[in-house]
């Protein structure tokens, strides 16, 4: 169990961050922009592999993370810019960026593999391709060691601190973006800033739940919390509780039963969401 300590702590801190951000993600209807960003990260992994940056060493892990973070942030800003050119509709933007990045990722994976088939030392370092793809798609938090966990924890805390710092501006933006400029703030600036934070958060969540499910951790807790209350502080409190509680319970079940951890956490949070939905439609409940 001790081997899992860094993984468990990292997962809990990342979930806490997910809980706080997810309220904004749900209010701003960014769930699918989150999906777009996380899938775009796959292209970033492909680039890292072609450049010969592997997560098998510590420096490699940092390098890979840097490349994936940079790629995801670019994808997020690209989605934001395309959304603006499509009159505020994000679906086309996500469709373009998600597909292009996924396709790029798969092509680069193949390029990297064929390149290393001829390279003895590279092949030795290289992880099994299919295993690697699965890990990227669905996450592999239990392999996390202390150095990697510390990076995730620091990034998560920095994101939380920034969100706390500008919470009132973010809330104004989430509540009524069309008038943000008229009140002396910049809607474009706030959107871009939040999407950069979201991209960073998603790359962190990918370590738990992978490309496919990372965005869920940035949607489910907020969606569940908004079923429970129409007041600000309780919503954030519930969201964080559901995020951290769901992650803890999901990890416990996953480790006990040897289920994949990321999908088990997402499943647990999904069940919690369904329970809150039932609570929302229970007669006699006052909001």
């Amino acid at each position, binding site marked *: 169990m001790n081997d899992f300590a860094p993984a468990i702590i990292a997962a809990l801190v990342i979930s806490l961050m997910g809980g706080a951000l997810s309220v904004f993600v749900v*209010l701003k209807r960014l769930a699918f922009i989150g999906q777009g960003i996380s899938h775009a990260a796959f292209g970033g992994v492909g680039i890292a592999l072609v450049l010969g940056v592997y997560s098998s060493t510590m420096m490699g892990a940092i390098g890979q993370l840097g490349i994936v973070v940079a790629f995801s942030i670019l994808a997020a800003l690209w989605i934001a810019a395309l959304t603006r050119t499509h009159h505020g509709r994000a679906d086309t933007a996500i469709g373009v960026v998600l597909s292009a990045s996924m396709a790029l990722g798969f092509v680069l994976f193949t390029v990297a593999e064929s390149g290393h088939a001829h390279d003895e030392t590279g092949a030795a370092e290289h992880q099994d391709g299919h295993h690697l793809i699965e890990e990227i798609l669905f996450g592999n938090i239990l392999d996390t060691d202390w150095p990697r966990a510390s990076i995730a924890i620091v990034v998560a805390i920095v994101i939380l601190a920034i969100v706390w*710092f*500008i919470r*009132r*501006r973010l*809330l*104004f933006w*989430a*509540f*009524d*973006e*069309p*008038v943000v*400029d*008229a*009140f*002396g*703030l910049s809607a474009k600036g706030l959107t871009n800033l939040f999407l950069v934070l979201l991209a960073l958060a998603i790359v962190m969540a990918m370590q738990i739940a992978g490309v496919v499910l990372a965005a869920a951790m940035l949607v489910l807790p907020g969606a569940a919390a*908004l079923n429970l*209350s*129409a*007041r*600000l502080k*309780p*919503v954030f409190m519930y969201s964080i509780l559901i995020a951290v509680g769901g992650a803890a319970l999901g990890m416990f079940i996953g480790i006990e039963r040897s289920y994949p951890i990321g999908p088990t956490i997402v499943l647990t949070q999904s069940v919690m969401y369904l329970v809150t939905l039932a609570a929302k439609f229970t007669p006699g409940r006052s*909001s």
Partner: protein
Amino acid sequence: MPLSEHPLSPQPAVEIDHVSYTYPARGFDVLPVPAIENVHFTIDQSTKLGILGPNGGGKSTLIKLILGIIKPTTGTIRVFGQAPAQARQNGLIGYLPQRIEADRSCPISIEQVVGLARACHTKPWKKLTQGDQAAIDRAIELVDLQALATHPIGALSGGQLQRVMIARAIANNPKLLVLDEPTVGVDIAGQQRFGQLIETLHKELDLTVIVVSHDMRAIAAVADRVACLSRSLHFHAAPDGLTPAVLAQVFAHDVAGVFGDIHIDAHLADGCDDPSHAHQHQHDCGCDEKGAES
């Protein structure tokens, strides 16, 4: 030189100096669209100016220009002597949007909505002070929502939500209040209540008010002066009332069919189909207009 109703007043609220704005071309097939052309007028402090015009007449563009969200293609605008964007940053301009697009599922209270606007002009790391809280309370009191101040906005009626938005618009003690199509879809009684509320704010806060609408009644409920905007500013100084002929010119279709026999107070609207009226009666009007001929 702007002529003004109050020659001693130190500074006009808004000076619009030969302003044109053209939306840029897009793609291969969307040509540049001129939205307003050579608009030139001055709005004195403490007046309530209605800007009447058809859809597509450039009203929203003019609002964006006054708020400093877009910059004129040619000409200059000053708001209380400052560049509009600066005036907006300084909290001098309050704004009520046309459609309330705010997210009603957002878990915040009336007090918090008004507080967020107040916080726009506070450094993000600073807490709201007692002075801020007093301003928030006053804004809510002025729109008569103090009994609901801590209620979540999701439970409010449309009219109450609009009053929240008005409270938000005055949260920073602006000197200019811009109302964009404020009473679309509101019945006449509702428009009159809205007009009374704006009148109260105008008196209490010594506000200059600009109300923009395609709806004569909406303008009548709020404004004591009228200008007509249909790409260029047509007129706004005549004592004989806004005649159907004048309105038809602005709206470019048969107005009687649209407005019926609506009564317009003579002091309220100024027929200016003859541009010379504009010059004859400038002193009747809080705003001096020189773009009429264009």
